[in-house]
């Protein structure tokens, strides 16, 4: 009843009705998802006694963090201007940010016709992304259940072709990004071919940071050089 009276008087602000609750539930769902994500790993350990040594886990963690560690911080910051607070909570729980969330948010805003940066735009983006999350859940569930079944039906040549899914994905992924930054692409693949070709005796734990950080440092230098050239002009 009190709520109704307040509405009639128009005493609610966007912060009170939307943002505060979004932060509350956003934080709850993201931090709550962390322990849930460990369930399969813990299940394999306790029920099937399948667990690598702590050293292996830490090594793997180091390897992957040396690749994506920067992205944990940089991607949320770089998408924030597009996603806003509610969009960031959704996109970084459900993933597929560049290929699904961002396009869906933008198309929804476009169709409804909201002012960029307005509260309306944020609500519409939230609804659009929610729609895309539901679609994604349906498709992944069908793929998970039917995909295994489909896999068993595949003719041998298809199964054989699936052995080459990794080079195919990495080739396409590399080309996609290299086209936007050809210089970094040439450097990144060059350094990797040199080190993997001639120094393949080095452990992965050294090879990954050399290739990744090497390319990052090259990128930073290149950017600073370009900036200086513009400034001196």
């Amino acid at each position, binding site marked *: 009843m009190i709520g109704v009276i307040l509405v009639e008087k128009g005493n609610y602000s966007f912060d009170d009705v939307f943002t505060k609750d979004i932060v509350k539930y956003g934080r709850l769902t993201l*931090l709550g998802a962390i322990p849930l994500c460990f369930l399969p790993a813990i299940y394999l350990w306790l029920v099937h006694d399948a667990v690598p040594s702590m050293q292996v886990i830490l090594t*793997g963690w180091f390897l992957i963090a040396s690749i994506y560690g920067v992205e944990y911080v940089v*991607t*949320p910051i770089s998408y924030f201007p597009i996603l806003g607070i509610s969009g960031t909570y959704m996109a970084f729980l459900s993933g597929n940010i560049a290929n699904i969330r961002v396009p869906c948010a933008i198309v929804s805003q476009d169709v409804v016709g909201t002012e960029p940066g307005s509260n309306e735009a944020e609500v519409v983006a939230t609804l659009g992304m929610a*729609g895309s999350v539901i679609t994604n859940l349906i498709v992944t569930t069908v793929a998970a259940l039917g995909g295994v079944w489909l*896999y068993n039906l595949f003719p041998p040549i298809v199964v054989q072709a699936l052995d080459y899914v990794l080079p195919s994905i990495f*080739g396409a992924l590399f080309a996609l990004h290299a086209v936007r930054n050809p210089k970094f692409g040439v450097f990144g693949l060059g350094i990797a071919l040199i080190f993997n070709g001639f120094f393949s005796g080095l452990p992965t734990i050294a090879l990954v940071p050399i290739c*990744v950080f090497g390319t990052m440092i090259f990128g930073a230098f290149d950017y600073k050089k370009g900036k200086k050239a513009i400034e001196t002009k």
Partner: protein
Amino acid sequence: MGGYLDIANSLGMWIMAIPVVLITGVQAIIFVKKSLDACKTKVVNLSKEQCKTAFRVGAVSAIGPALSVFIVMIALIAVIGGPMSWLRLSIIGAAPTELTAAQMGAEAMKVDFGGSDYDLTAFSSSVWVMTLNGCGWLLFCGLFTDKLGKLQDKVAGGDSKLMGVIASAAVLGTAGYLLSRHLLAGGPSFRAGIVSAIAMLVLEKVAHNKPKLKEYNLGIAMVIGMISAVVI
């Protein structure tokens, strides 16, 4: 492939995957409710119809790219099983990210990802690394999303472009590293890598002004690469 897939596809693993998949759906439902509350209380100037339209457009636009996830996911299922593919592709971390993490888990054990010595323990190592990797984003965004608004203004005063440059260089350093091993392996792996890269370049040109077509590019390039590996 090894016997680990029996356990990777077991009922227990399916049950362990359910809570994470559910939480993304639950969050979406809560956020829709809050959006509708904002419309009802008139703090935003949107009609109920506009809210419905926004949701529907998002749901429909997602079909295309979600189907390309479907293709990649079937390939992922072959290596890490249905339940883990379902869990990992329902939350943060796209398919290439998860594949990289799974591969790093195998490399930490010093075995070939998906190879003959890739056993249950190696699979478990992949699971740990995929999980820990995904938690990086969950933790950062769970703790700091509400503070990002304030941070954004500060960084803009600094050099936000430099951060973007470093991030794209990191992506290329990684993709280059992963691709190089397959190129150096030669034969069908080399062909698959090169052909899918060329296919991607052509597709990007063709789909330049057609965002709808673009959504399928990765899936199509991948299929072309795989065909070149087994047919030529």
